[in-house]
């Protein structure tokens, strides 16, 4: 006997045609799967009744399939090299990028021919995508068993700052796990959906996501049922774990004794710290009894007030990031209608109090902050497979960094500014630099800096077959398009001839939010230097263009139109301009370009007369009249 669920009026599916869908929160530490059944979004549990699946995969030798979840996490201490955790942090990263952060992981990274890093395990080499696929497969199977049928598709949540490479890697992992991705959804947007904020007419909402190891803040705006991410901010190295460490420091101060602590004692203290932290969400004080092996013990109490003083710096760090995100979004704190809490660390009372003080209103409560993201994803998945025609909400996300291309002189021309809502398509026209130029190299870059060298190169392609024309006559339209999943494609077309070329950017590199943050900070810090560098390069490019044009003209008709003396004078100007352009005084170059233009005006006038004369010579007055 099949088990049935209640449908919305008029939307009961035909037998064997149920639209089953699930939402997956693929987290750094923990993952969850949820689904809408009989109109209610619920997280799905495994046969042991556990909702949360630790994002840990243990690989085994001799063909045994990998273990995922709690038992893998418990095996981590005994089998560190084959037990892979926190893989989300290296999703979409290249081998080069891992050199910086790979040291934090105990695994043995192997460089292979490809740019995707591999990790050596008992089951052979595995990529981060394959590891994530194991987690997704586990959750997918749980959903199939619980819902009693194959999934039509899933919505997987990703951090709002995830770039193209990280989003693509997540999609690839889902594909590998045999799941059809309906949509990647930003985590903060999912949380807002879970609270039904989308059913309000409009408003600005702040999503405060404080997890175990990371902090993220997102400012969303809802207008006429459309969600738009105004800004995001965060710190990949700030979380509840920091509170635990702070507490451990304090405990060690109480115990006294040696400066060095063995790893096993540290582990014991961390566990005690976490338990104390959790107890203090309800209690005003906890009694601590610390005793481990032969180490000196300690007994005493810890009040919530003491605890608050210890972790206050951590909470204040998050609030500073909140302020910056508000500034980025261009909104005042009074504009924020609702604050949504995500992540286990938001259970700490001080976090809630700080938020309430800052925004002068209490944050939304009621949904488990650890499950809220997966519930929102489930609701969105349910809508996308067509189970709920009421919920036609459209979710918009933003580009974390500006996207643009390189123009002459190594400068960046931004086509899609940072924080632009996606999906988006923007086109801009460019032209050729030299006479008879038949090809153009298009370098796609990401970042906020003025010079390409300071930004991140995503791809490069060439537009060939441009018909020979004078410099500046070609009209090359370059279109940047970012789809709903945040993937970029760039197309270039010469409008006169129709020749075109395009590229889909599936970059093998990724950026962490820390790096995105770093690039942003650099763009502020170097703003002045960048402006100067850009002005200099602009003048240098202009000087180069003038030199090229003058030389071409001289070669063409210099002998006919100029006396020897005039010609020498102009040639001197050109070489002077060339020499000045090689130096770094933008003002001097600009003045010299002006002088060159002024001093060569007579030559330009003669050339003009000459071409008019050429055009008119040999024609009757009638013919000229007809031509007009």
């Amino acid at each position, binding site marked *: *006997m099949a*088990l049935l*669920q*209640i449908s919305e009026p008029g939307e*009961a599916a*035909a037998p064997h045609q149920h639209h089953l869908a699930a939402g997956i929160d693929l987290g750094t530490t923990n993952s969850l799967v949820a689904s809408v059944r009989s109109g209610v979004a619920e997280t799905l549990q495994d046969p042991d009744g556990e909702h949360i699946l630790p994002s840990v995969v243990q690989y085994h030798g001799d063909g045994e399939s990998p273990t995922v979840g709690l038992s893998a996490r418990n095996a981590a201490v005994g089998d560190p090299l084959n037990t892979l955790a926190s893989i989300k942090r290296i999703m979409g990263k290249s081998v080069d990028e891992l050199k910086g952060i790979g040291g934090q992981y105990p695994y043995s990274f192997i460089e292979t021919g490809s740019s995707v890093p591999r990790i050596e395990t008992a089951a052979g080499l595995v990529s981060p995508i394959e590891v994530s696929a194991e987690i997704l497969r586990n959750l997918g199977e749980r959903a199939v068993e619980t819902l009693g049928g194959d999934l039509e598709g899933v919505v997987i949540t990703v951090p709002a700052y995830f770039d193209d490479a990280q989003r693509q890697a997540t999609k690839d992992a889902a594909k590998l796990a045999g799941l059809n991705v309906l949509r990647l959804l930003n985590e903060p947007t999912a949380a807002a959906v879970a609270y039904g904020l989308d059913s309000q007419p409009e408003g600005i909402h702040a999503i405060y996501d404080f997890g175990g190891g990371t902090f993220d803040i997102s400012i969303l705006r809802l207008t006429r049922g459309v969600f738009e991410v105004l800004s995001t901010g965060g710190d990949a190295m700030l979380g509840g774990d920091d509170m635990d460490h702070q507490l451990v420091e304090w405990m060690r101060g109480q115990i006294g004794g040696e400066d060095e602590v063995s790893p096993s004692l540290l582990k014991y203290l961390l566990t005690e710290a976490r338990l104390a932290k959790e107890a203090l969400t309800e209690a005003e004080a906890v009694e601590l009894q610390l005793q481990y092996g032969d180490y000196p013990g300690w007994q005493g109490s810890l009040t919530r007030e003491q605890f608050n003083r210890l972790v206050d710096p951590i909470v204040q760090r998050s609030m500073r990031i909140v302020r910056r995100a508000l500034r980025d979004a261009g909104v005042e704190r009074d504009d924020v209608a609702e604050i949504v809490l995500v992540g286990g660390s938001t259970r700490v009372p001080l976090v809630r109090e700080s938020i309430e003080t800052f925004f002068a209103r209490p944050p939304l409560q009621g949904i488990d902050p650890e499950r809220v993201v997966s519930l929102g994803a489930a609701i969105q998945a349910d809508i996308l497979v067509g189970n709920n025609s009421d919920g036609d909400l459209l979710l918009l996300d933003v580009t974390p960094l500006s996207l643009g291309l390189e123009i002459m002189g190594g400068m960046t021309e931004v086509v899609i500014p940072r924080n632009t809502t996606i999906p988006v398509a923007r086109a801009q026209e460019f032209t050729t630099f030299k006479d008879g130029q038949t090809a153009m190299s298009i370098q796609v870059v990401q970042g906020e800096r003025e010079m390409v060298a300071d930004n991140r190169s995503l791809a490069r392609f060439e537009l060939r077959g441009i018909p020979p024309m004078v410099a500046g006559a070609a009209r090359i339209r370059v279109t940047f398009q970012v789809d709903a999943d945040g993937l970029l494609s760039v197309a270039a077309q010469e409008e006169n001839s129709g020749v075109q070329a395009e590229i889909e950017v599936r970059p093998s590199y990724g950026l962490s939010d820390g790096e995105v943050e770093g690039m942003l900070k650099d763009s502020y810090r170097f703003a002045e230097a960048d402006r100067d560098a850009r002005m200099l390069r602009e003048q240098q490019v202009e000087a180069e263009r003038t030199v090229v044009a003058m030389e071409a003209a001289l070669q063409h008709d210099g002998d006919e139109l100029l006396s020897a003396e005039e010609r020498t004078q102009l040639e001197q100007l050109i070489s002077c301009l060339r020499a000045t352009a090689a130096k770094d005084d933008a003002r001097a170059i600009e003045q010299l370009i002006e002088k060159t233009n002024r001093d060569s005006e007579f030559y330009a006038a003669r050339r003009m007369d000459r071409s008019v004369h050429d055009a008119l010579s040999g024609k009757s007055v009638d013919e000229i009249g007809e031509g007009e």
Partner: protein
Amino acid sequence: MAITMTPAAAERVKSFLKNRGRGVGLRLGVKTSGCSGMAYLLEFVDQIEEEDQVFESDGIKVIVDPKSMVYLDGTELDYGKEGLNEGFKFNNPNVKNSCGCGESFNV
């Protein structure tokens, strides 16, 4: 005869309706199609139609249209678990045979 609900089913329907925030009851119905003739239908009801028959079971309105009534009379709606899966079951005395999965049936 009538249509009834087990206490387990009634409790679930109550909580689903509360969660949904609107709706006057639960519609039981059958529609043609499926691999074995007829298929069950289970929907929230926002509006009761004139021809509908309404039963009360544990304080919940169970709504059935007259065409479906002939196939469903005497049915008891139950709620149960099978492994990880859980959902509603139709205990329908009119059924002669059903397809393997039980989602569609013949009378």
